[in-house]
């Protein structure tokens, strides 16, 4: 068991700090996080960690033991932060500041690929009949062929009730497994709760703390009346260390619901435009899972008093909005050589003097190779206050924020449509199209133009156009930037 978080980082002092430094740092940290002064819900947790770090480091013998025993960590997680400004201005009004947080993991030695514990939950409602279900079955068969000896794979099919087609035990015999999957036939309605319940049960049966535990939901429809129960189930799954990802086929499925379902566990949700793309999407997802070093990654943002976290957005991988109210932010898996980027927007109520603390970030994760849970890495965000003009913000922040703003803009257009404000929706879509054209995305701009026409003629948008624009603008966020 590694000691986590690093006690020196926790107090914000160097390893060479004197006992006086440690006392001073403790008093400062206590002022920031004591629940009496900081209303942030996670402040008391940070305070306990600070108090523990102080207890150990202020006792000479315990400190020596800690320094000697600081076991080499299995993996090293770094939190690199870039702020939108170099300083706050000494003004009496609220100020916005953005941070791009890059979380990455490196292993000291050769990193063994973790085993997978995956359950594929397939929608077999009537509308899946034909190429959709055929392609999904072919994709499942391909996954079965690619399983490694330690992997566990199960398949659940659901309509208005669910059926375990293949248990993890049964997938050991590959040819029998493929023929079992081929028996799935379409028929019935779509009740996602049924499929989720059965799928999570299968994953629990074969649960392994050192494996990547993942449920992949494939659906082409809407579920009615059981959304809240599904979300509750996802929240519980996340606590058990299971991630849910959603793949929507065609245009009828409920994108908002699937987004929220996946986001509750830090998983990804994606749009599959045509049935043949299923195979590649699924294979890609499984391949990525195989590179997982730590799972159940969460980012806890503890704001200092007078600071508000206004919004959070996962920029990469799998861009998508995060809910600041639902802390810690769920970020899914952390893969070898990969970076999880999150864009945070804070509001500083009133800048004081000197150095202004903004927030403490804690990345929390379960490390697969040693089976340890809730490992913690920390970083502090702080800014000096100075009365000088603002510098040009760093390019990384501008590029990320530009695309995220575009994504939010199209979301606001749909909200205006739903609120019956056609003029506002049109104006927002025009701005989206204008920005897309300026950003050299004529194809996506064309899709937006067609929706503007449709709104003008019918006061409605098409389900297909809306999904293409939403997932199209979202994909731009992760796309490599063109350098002009």
């Amino acid at each position: 068991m590694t000691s986590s978080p690093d006690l020196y980082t926790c107090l914000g002092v160097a390893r060479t700090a004197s006992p006086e430094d440690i006392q001073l740092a403790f008093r400062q940290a206590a002022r920031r996080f004591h629940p009496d002064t900081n209303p942030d819900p996670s402040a008391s947790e940070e305070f306990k960690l600070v108090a523990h770090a102080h207890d150990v480091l202020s006792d000479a013998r315990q400190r020596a033991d800690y320094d000697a025993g600081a076991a080499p960590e299995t993996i090293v997680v770094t939190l690199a932060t870039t702020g939108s400004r170099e300083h706050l201005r000494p003004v009496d009004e609220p100020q916005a500041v953005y941070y791009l947080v890059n979380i990455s993991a490196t292993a000291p030695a050769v990193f063994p690929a973790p085993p997978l514990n995956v359950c594929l939950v397939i929608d077999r409602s009537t509308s899946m009949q034909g190429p959709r279900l055929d392609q999904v079955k072919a994709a499942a068969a391909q996954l079965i062929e690619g399983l490694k000896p330690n992997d566990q794979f199960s398949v659940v099919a659901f309509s208005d009730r669910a059926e375990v087609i293949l248990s993890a035990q049964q997938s050991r015999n590959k040819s029998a497994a493929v023929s079992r999957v081929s028996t799935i036939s379409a028929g019935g309605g779509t009740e996602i709760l049924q499929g989720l319940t059965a799928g999570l049960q299968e994953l629990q049966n074969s649960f392994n703390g050192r494996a990547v535990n993942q449920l992949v939901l494939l659906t082409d429809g809407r579920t009615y009346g059981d959304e809240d129960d599904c979300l509750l189930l996802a929240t519980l799954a996340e606590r058990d260390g299971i991630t849910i990802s959603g793949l929507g086929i065609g245009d009828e499925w409920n994108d908002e619901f699937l987004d929220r379902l996946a986001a509750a566990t830090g998983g990804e949700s994606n749009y599959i435009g045509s049935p043949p793309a299923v195979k590649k999407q699924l294979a890609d997802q499984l391949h990525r899972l195989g590179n997982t070093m730590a799972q159940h990654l969460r980012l806890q943002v503890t704001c200092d008093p007078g600071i508000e976290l206004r919004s959070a957005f996962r920029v990469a991988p799998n861009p998508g909005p995060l809910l600041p109210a639902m802390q810690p932010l769920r970020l899914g898996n952390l893969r070898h050589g990969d970076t999880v980027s999150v864009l945070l927007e804070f509001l500083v109520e009133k800048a004081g003097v000197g150095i202004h603390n903004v927030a403490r970030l804690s990345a929390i994760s379960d490390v697969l190779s040693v089976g340890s849970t809730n490992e913690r890495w920390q970083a502090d965000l702080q800014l000096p206050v100075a009365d000088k003009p603002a510098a040009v913000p760093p390019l990384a922040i501008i590029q990320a924020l530009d695309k995220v703003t575009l994504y939010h803009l199209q979301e606001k257009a749909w909200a205006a449509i739903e609120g019956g404000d056609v003029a506002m929706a049109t104006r927002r879509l025009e701005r989206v199209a204008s920005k897309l054209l300026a950003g050299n995305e004529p194809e996506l701009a064309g899709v937006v133009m067609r929706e503007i026409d449709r709104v003008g003629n019918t006061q409605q948008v098409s389900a297909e156009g809306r999904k293409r624009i939403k997932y199209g603008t979202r994909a731009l966020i992760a796309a490599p930037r063109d350098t002009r």
Partner: protein
Amino acid sequence: MITCPKCSHVEYEGTLFCSECGARLWDDPAADSTANLDSKTLREIEQHTVIVPGRTTLSKGKIAFRVHGTTDQIRLEGKTEYLLGRRDPKHNIVPDLDLSAYNGQKQGVSRRHAVVRRDERGLLIVDLGSANGTGVNGITLTANEPFRLRDGDEIRLGKLAMNIYFLAD
């Protein structure tokens, strides 16, 4: 608080992009200027992305503009640089091509919108960081970046479109 120059939405100090229109809210002389246009204009841009090949070279340095929907030919000669915009005597802005009479303000033409300049190879146009941008043959120009013009090119200042011609005599 700061106010978006494009749509007047109010944002907190330090905000980088307007949440209502996506416009940039910090000062950066090198950045792109993004035009906010309505869908009709955008559609026209799509229809006009054909490049008109240059025919006449700029031998004598005489040029003429024709605003779309009019037959007037506005001739300019004798200078190496012409300002395109709207007249504003209060601020002592007197453009060589004054578009006030062509409903310039409503069409989104800035007072100091763009400059057309001669060099040894011909003619260049530079958008001066105008509010609604400058386009040539459907391509939106980057502010402060010169763009080479050819005879017959379509120029768009805001929503106001015109052609430029190089005159032989």
